[in-house]
């Protein structure tokens, strides 16, 4: 049978341990849980974009390449893609508005954008590029314009959505950076 004193010590230890664990759990929630919640938000957002056909599974491969030694990888790759894609769209616009269309150049830029959009998982942009490529192969001016207008629309949709992913990534990076600093300097 446990004496009154021993019972009191057990109760006191129970209270102290709960008190000790609580700040730890709160700190854990404030830093790591924010990162976890943001990652979940990102997954949900990417999932919805895949359901709409804007992204495909190739984007998951890009996310898989993220690591602790290069947390900014996804931001860098998306930024790189947008920079090159903006240039491709501008060049396509320029060449398609020439009095005499240089279809070889149009094919070149359409193929380039098709390749990079495929790597980033930009499904609709990839399909639109394919359509523009076919139209250029056939030197069909009207079909080229139609395909290019579709491409511009799909690219704007992709661009605005992956810019949002960049924002989420930057918030996650900032949150994880704060967490590491707190762990190093409690």
């Amino acid at each position, binding site marked *: 049978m446990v004496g009154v004193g021993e019972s009191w010590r057990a109760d006191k230890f129970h209270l102290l*341990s709960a008190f000790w*664990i609580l700040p730890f759990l709160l700190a854990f929630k404030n830093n790591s849980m924010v990162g976890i919640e943001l990652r979940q938000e990102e997954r949900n957002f990417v999932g919805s974009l895949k359901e709409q056909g804007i992204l495909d599974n190739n984007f998951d*491969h890009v996310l898989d*390449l993220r690591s602790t030694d290069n947390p900014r990888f996804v931001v860098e*790759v998306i930024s790189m*893609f947008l920079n*090159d894609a903006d240039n491709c769209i501008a060049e396509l616009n320029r060449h398609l508005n020439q009095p005499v269309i240089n279809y070889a150049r149009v094919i070149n830029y359409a193929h380039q954008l*098709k*390749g990079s959009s495929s790597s*980033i998982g930009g499904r609709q942009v990839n399909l639109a590029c394919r359509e523009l490529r076919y139209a250029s192969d056939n030197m069909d001016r009207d079909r080229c314009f139609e395909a290019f207008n579709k491409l511009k629309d799909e690219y704007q949709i992709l661009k605005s959505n992956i810019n949002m992913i960049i924002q989420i990534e930057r918030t996650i990076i900032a949150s994880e950076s704060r967490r590491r600093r707190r762990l190093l300097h409690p």
Partner: protein
Amino acid sequence: MEIIPFFSIILFLSSPKNPFLDHTHTHHSGKLEISFMEFGATSRKKNKMVNGNQKFRTEITALVVDDDTTNRTIHRRLLQNLGIENQEVRNGKEAIDIHSSGRNFDLILMDMDMPIMNGIEATKQLRAMGIRSTIVGVSTRSMEEKVQEFMEAGLDDYQEKPLTSAKLISILHKMNHNGSV
């Protein structure tokens, strides 16, 4: 009893299944030393690891030949994640030039459509120069005729873009087992 939650937290944090632990491998200056367990843990699809404890060891270098910045970055990252020292060039001519300068690579990831010199021409020239590296064609082209032409130029293998970790591991597996693909 009251310390059980505390120890359960400690056990969780030190567990190999803790998603917050860094499972990335260590790069040993060109030497590839990786276990599929480690590689599987770095992947999101943790339930689809290949041969849990199998070790994969080699020393290889790679060259990425692609005119697109995004593709070069992704392919280089894939190689870096597997501890493979790598370089990049932007077209077939630069691939020829880098070999002419005396550099040699175990693995060349060759894009098909590039300005100045495409992958088919570059592959032919590299083989004519006596380069025996493993050359893997990587392209979005799926037309059998074009792929056949690319293979006949001297490729060891062809993979459709985008290149993934799984595709790259299968290429390295073949190199490890056969000495070449």
